[in-house]
């Protein structure tokens, strides 16, 4: 009886995994901007979601639930990485070394992207999550509102405010950088 219920839960979870796995990864990648870290975080988020899957009564909220788990885990990892970096800097005081990136990230990066990433980090979490989700392919604003259980108007206003905040921070770089 119990094994059958577990098998059902496993099957149901696997059906959602193909769609929601990339979503969890992209949310983490948007926060961390590092593919390897984002993969670890997405994996952990999916495992946590699976362990608590039987406690989720409304399965239609699975995507938003998973997005929040992944977003929270990514923020935690980003903060701990920053603390570690500060601690290392205090002890060793090395020269400023840019974070290690793979070839894909090196190819995609430019000066503006660095400024954008820093500006994104300074955004409040509620604006950052909505902005990340709105930038992803395949999700409309209505779907985002349903996903994070926020009214449609709130999502629109958050996107608008977030973009304006980013523009305020990046305007001083607009004339000096080679925008893509």
């Amino acid at each position, binding site marked *: 009886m119990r094994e059958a219920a577990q098998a059902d839960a496993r099957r149901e979870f696997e059906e959602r995994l193909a769609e929601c796995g*990339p979503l969890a*990864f992209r949310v983490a990648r948007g926060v961390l*901007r590092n593919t390897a870290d984002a993969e670890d975080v997405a*994996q952990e988020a999916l*495992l946590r979601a699976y362990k608590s899957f*039987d406690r989720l009564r409304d399965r239609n909220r699975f995507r938003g639930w998973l997005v929040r788990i992944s977003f929270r885990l990514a923020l935690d990892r980003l903060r701990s990485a920053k603390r570690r970096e500060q601690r290392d800097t205090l002890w060793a005081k090395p020269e400023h070394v840019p974070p290690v990136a793979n070839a894909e990230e090196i190819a995609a990066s430019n000066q503006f*992207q660095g400024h*954008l990433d820093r500006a*994104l980090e300074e955004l409040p979490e509620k604006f950052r999550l909505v902005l990340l989700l709105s930038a992803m392919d395949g999700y409309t604003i209505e779907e985002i509102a349903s996903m994070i259980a926020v009214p449609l108007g709130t999502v629109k206003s958050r996107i608008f405010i977030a973009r304006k905040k980013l523009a305020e921070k990046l305007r001083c770089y607009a004339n000096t950088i080679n925008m893509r």
Partner: protein
Amino acid sequence: MLCEHDKHALIEVAASGATLQGELRPHLGECASCRSTFDEERSLFSAIDSGLHASANAEVPSSLLPRVRAQLDEVVAPRFRWLQPLVFGSASVALAFAVFLMARPHHATPEEIAKHAPEVVPAPTVPATSKNPEGTSPEGTQSAAIPVRHSHAARNSTDRHFSASSNPEVLVPPDEREGLARFVATLNQRRDFAAAFLAQRPEKKDALVTVDPLQIPDIEIKPLEGTETEASDGAGEKH
């Protein structure tokens, strides 16, 4: 002033991504400054959107889903996870209570001690002719257990085991046992003798020991017989 107001409105339009409407559209055709500002703002928001899109739509590693599936196999989702701490907690409390009960010192009242005092029952006499059938006892001695019967029932199996294992065993040689049996038989036959034997002796107070001086009578020295004869004989020879 009018241009500054229009610039602010142009930034709002660029941020919202909407198209120019109303008075702004003809003004943009006339004012090169505002047109330039609007173009810069649109470029800026376009760059932001482009950067966000690149960041948010990174290619998903192909190893992600297989890794997650592999870990799902190792995870056993416990349905009654909340029950485990409850069971462990209850078991711990019960165990601690049992240990407390066993380790608690038992304070018995004097009445209870007197009531629980063991009653010694004389051991049945073993016939002198009986032999140890197994021959496990050492040669010349046999073990005879003196049973100790407790007047109270044992409270639990532990006490019972302890009392049974603590019965004293007295090793009595067969000849001594035979002599004791004869002595008891004699006592049974002669009650008066037994009463006299078991009666308490009157206490004797220790008297002071006095040492009398030795009485030595006067010594009378008598001459030995024949001494005069020898003396006269000797004188006769000298002469």
